[in-house]
């Protein structure tokens, strides 16, 4: 076997081309990791949605709670009563009736005489905040408490509390006639509820939802129930639409968020497509370097063949050199790319009906992302080195020495 040191020293001797090729690889791999980390972060977020036994109930055909409407009438209680799968806390079923909406909060202009600025707030109206917290497995941070049925209190996710710069006891106005007091901040980091404000269902329905006081129409968008375990949840999700007169879609909550995050798959596809094209470009760069290495070392190859090295060993030697070059650049790219691990980003999870949920999440560089990137690097190294190595293998010893 030709010693690896021979290849390594060749790379050092031609350090300029080695550096140029390796830096190209570094950039491609680092970018690939950033793009994959973004998608992985969103995917991880969609998996942290609460207990595995949660079932989300929407109106029939709705794929996004923003567009779901379940009339708040005498039949709606069918959705959470008399279903043995649903757990209980005391004498109450573990069911949270909710109305989800997005509010536009008007902010003062940046400068005097300028026009007003606006900010989106994700607001969820809940009937019983304590039960809702239990259903979504979201405890309050120390010092907070769940709001009561009376008064103008709300609780909010940790992320939105930081964005708004408020804490327990602070006031804020989502619209001029509403003065809300923060009763508590939820320990919601890493969950899709981190950017949400929870208020009384009636207020959210009236000011931000579809409720129509004149016609006495009120709506829930969502009912979330907690069952004993995943098997019970699957059974309930399957059977609930057939058990009630209200026409509904029932799915596992984890599946709902998984579906929402499918919009990220398009992003992932685009990211991989761009990375592949860039990688092929980088691979051609490597091919150039390796062809040059072969043409400069014709005599070396001839000598190696004369002293007994076989063509396959010549092939392996140049392939190894190509892989080494790719690995040097790629590993540096992995290190740089790893720097985005944990960096907070804002993204959108969308159900494909034009809605969407703005979420704050941490980019994730995990073993899967690193494996992808490393495989990519090695594949580029193999493909980029193959043709030049084959050319070197086919060289005839005497012709090479002439």
């Amino acid at each position, binding site marked *: 076997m030709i010693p690896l040191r021979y290849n390594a020293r060749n790379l050092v001797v031609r350090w300029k081309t080695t550096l140029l090729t390796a830096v*190209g690889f570094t*950039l491609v791999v680092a970018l690939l990791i950033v793009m994959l980390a973004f998608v992985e972060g969103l995917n991880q977020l969609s998996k942290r949605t609460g207990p595995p036994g949660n079932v989300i109930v929407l109106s*029939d055909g709705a794929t996004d709670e923003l567009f779901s409407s*379940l009339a708040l009438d005498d039949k709606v209680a069918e959705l959470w009563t008399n279903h043995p799968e649903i757990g209980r806390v005391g004498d109450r079923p573990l069911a949270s009736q909710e109305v989800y909406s997005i509010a536009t909060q008007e902010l003062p202009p940046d400068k005097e005489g300028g026009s007003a600025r606006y900010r989106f707030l994700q607001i969820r109206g809940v009937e019983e905040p304590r039960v809702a917290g239990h259903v979504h497995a979201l405890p309050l941070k120390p010092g907070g408490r769940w709001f009561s049925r009376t008064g103008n209190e709300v609780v909010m996710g940790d992320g939105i509390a930081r964005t708004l710069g408020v804490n327990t006891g602070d006031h804020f106005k989502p619209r001029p006639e509403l003065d809300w007091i923060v009763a508590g901040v939820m320990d919601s980091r890493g969950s899709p509820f981190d950017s949400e404000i929870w208020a009384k269902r009636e207020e959210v329905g009236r000011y931000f939802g579809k409720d129509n006081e004149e*016609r006495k129409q009120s709506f829930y968008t969502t009912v979330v129930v907690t069952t004993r375990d995943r098997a019970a949840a699957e059974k309930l999700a399957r059977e609930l639409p057939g058990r009630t007169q209200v*026409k509904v879609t029932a799915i596992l909550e984890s599946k709902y968020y998984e579906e929402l995050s499918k919009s990220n798959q398009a992003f992932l596809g685009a990211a991989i497509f761009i990375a592949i094209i*860039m990688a092929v470009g*980088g691979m*051609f760069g490597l091919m150039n370097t390796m062809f040059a290495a072969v043409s400069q070392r014709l005599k070396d190859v001839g000598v190696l063949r004369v002293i007994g090295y076989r063509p396959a060993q010549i092939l392996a030697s140049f392939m190894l050199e190509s892989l080494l070059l790719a690995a040097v650049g790629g590993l540096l790219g992995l290190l740089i790319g790893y720097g985005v691990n944990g960096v907070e980003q804002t*993204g959108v999870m969308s159900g494909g009906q034009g809605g969407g949920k703005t979420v704050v999440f941490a980019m994730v560089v995990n073993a899967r992302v690193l494996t992808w990137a490393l495989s990519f690097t090695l594949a580029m190294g193999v493909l980029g080195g193959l043709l030049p190595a084959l050319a070197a293998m086919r060289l005839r010893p005497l012709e090479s020495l002439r």
Partner: protein
Amino acid sequence: MQFVLFILKNLRRGRARTIITILAVMLLAATFSMVWTVVSALQSFTTEKATNVRAVLTDRYRIPSRFDRGLMDQIVRPHGILNGRLRKIQGFRPDKYTIWHFVFFTLDPDMKDKDLAFFAIATIPEKIPVMTEELEAFDPRLCQRVVSPPRTHKPNIGLIMGADRLRKLGKKVGDVFPARSISHREGTAARRPIEMEFEVVGALPATGRWSTAAFMDYAYLDRVLKDKKNEEDGQVHIGWLLVDDQAAATAVGGVIEKELRELRCETAASAYSRFLEPLKGVFWGIKWLLTPAIAIVMTLIVANAIAITVRERGTEVAVLKVLGFGRGRILVIILGEGMLLGVAGGLLGGGLTHGLVNGVAGGLPLGDGRFHVSGHAWWWGPAIGAITAAIGGLLPAWGACRIKVSTVFSRVA
């Protein structure tokens, strides 16, 4: 001319390297063109226009937006108090308006299959070409058919649908079919989905942002919503105004927001910016990380190719120097080689992307829309190829200029 021939001969001598480098630059220029297409499209959405400014009216405090159509009437109905005030603003055009109400339908009786769903905008048909961006050239006769469909003659049931969506649903112009609404339900206790009948009277272009959307008559939707006692009858989701310029947009917005506190009136560009706000970080990354990275990789590839060329042709450069070629001429020869590679690769990349993406793929699919690669890609490609090659080739070319004749010949000897 002599120089160009000389450069071409040099490139032909290293045919494999020339082809590989051109291929690499071509692929990267193609990526650059695609990324830049998306970036520039998003930028155009969020860039304020100087004339023919679209102003969008929405509910001031909630999303999905909805408000009484009556409010829109106050703005555009002649002789109204608010309309009277707005008419005093130079650039306000009372006839240039429309309303939108979004409805999601499905052809699937079980309402499960997402591929059978479509999204329709209920609007005033005659206003479609006047008020819809990218549909200014749409045939107004087709809009008339929405009101009076030629096959069924049932009033207002016409539907104009994007070519892509028609294909996905397996429908064509002339087809008549029922569709169930996912978003709108009967106001009765049963809350059954509202069912409506449609006749496809026209297709929206397969290219552009409307390829998957549909337009229906607001009059038809409103009639059905009233009949079914739906909570959204008489309501619209968005109102549009077309005014002459930014000054008019600001003045009109100011009057409307003051008089109708429940409405917000802003330019379309400003509204798009706000909706894209959560993705600001992503767009920043695409613009300032991905795009420069592509350019840097291109630069490195050309730099590498030129560096190899210079190293291999050290003796040749020395001979040229002996023959009287000055540093400047050698620099031009080497840089010229690099730039020719860059321009050729860039031209192929930009041109092929334009032809293949638009002609074969029908645009870059992103979300529900398709982005078309601008014809400018024909010059973006060569320009980015030339610039990156010039930067990448500079150091190796400078190295060639500094080759010492005595050193090279002593080595040869």
